C-alpha cells in the first residue's frame, strides 16, 4: 500500500501546516510503542482502514495511450482528547480537520470526508472522534501506447 500511504502522508503533512492544528500530534496507527498514558495532549492516530486497486484504461474513448491503475482507500484519523481536559476543543479541532482537508488535499484526491460522533475510550479514560475520508487517484503508466 505504498502508493496509498504516500498520498495519506501528503495529506497529513498538509493538515499539519494548518495553524489551528499545530497542537495536534499525529502518530501512525497500531504502532509497537506503548500507548501514551495518560493522553497528554490532542493525539491523532492515522490509519488506512480499507484500500482497493483496479486496472482500467484512464483515457477511455479519448485516447488509449493513457492507461493505469485506479486506487481507492478510506483513511481514518482518530483524534483523542487529552486526559482531564473534559474533551474541550475536540469538536472544534475535528471541524478544523474536516475543513482543512480542502487545503491539505493539494492533489484533489479526497472525494468524501466525515466526522463521527463522540466516543469514549474506557481504558484511556478519554473521548475521541473519528475523521475519515476517501481517497481516489490514478497512477498512469508512462509512455503507454
Amino acid at each position, binding site marked *: 500500500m505504498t502508493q496509498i500511504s504516500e498520498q495519506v502522508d501528503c495529506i497529513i503533512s498538509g493538515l499539519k501546516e494548518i495553524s489551528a492544528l499545530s497542537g495536534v500530534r499525529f*502518530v501512525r496507527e497500531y504502532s509497537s510503542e506503548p500507548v*501514551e498514558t495518560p493522553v497528554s495532549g490532542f493525539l491523532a492516530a492515522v490509519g488506512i482502514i480499507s484500500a482497493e486497486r483496479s486496472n482500467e484504461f484512464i483515457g477511455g474513448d479519448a485516447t488509449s495511450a493513457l492507461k493505469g491503475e485506479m486506487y481507492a482507500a478510506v483513511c481514518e484519523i482518530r483524534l483523542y482528547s487529552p486526559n482531564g481536559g473534559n474533551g474541550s476543543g475536540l469538536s472544534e479541532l475535528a471541524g478544523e480537520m474536516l475543513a482543512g482537508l480542502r487545503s491539505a488535499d493539494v492533489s484533489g484526491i479526497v472525494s468524501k470526508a466525515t466526522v463521527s460522533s463522540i466516543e469514549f475510550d474506557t481504558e484511556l*479514560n478519554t473521548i475521541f472522534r473519528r475523521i475519515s475520508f476517501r481517497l481516489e487517484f490514478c497512477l498512469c503508466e508512462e509512455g503507454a501506447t
Partner: protein
Amino acid sequence: MSLIGAVSNSIAKFGGDVEVTQGGSTVKTRAIVEPIRYKNKIYIGGEQRSLGTLIRERYLYIGQPDVPLRANASVIESVGGKYIVKRCETYYIQDRPIYVWAIMVPFGARREDDYDAD
C-alpha cells in the same frame, strides 16, 4: 503504638522508595508496590490499539496517607518501573487517614509526532 502509627511504620519498613509526581511537583516517599495477580496468573501479553500497544498489567500501591494521589494524574516511579494511577482511595479510621491505596498501570511515555520526521 497506635494502629495509625503501626500502618505507617509497616509501610515504611516493608515498602520501597518511590517518587510520586503530580503536576509539576515530585515527592519522595515509601510505599508497597506489587503486581496484581489475576486468576491463574494469566496476565501476559497486551493489546494493539490505534494509539499503540496497551500493556494490561495492573499494580497495587499502598502508601503513606500524607501523599495523596489523583487518578490519571499521579505518576509513581519505583525500582520496578514507572506507573500511572488509574484509581485511588484513602482509608480512614474515624476521621484520620491511615493509608492510600491505588491501582496502577504501566506508564506510557508521551508519543512523538510520527510525521515530523518525514
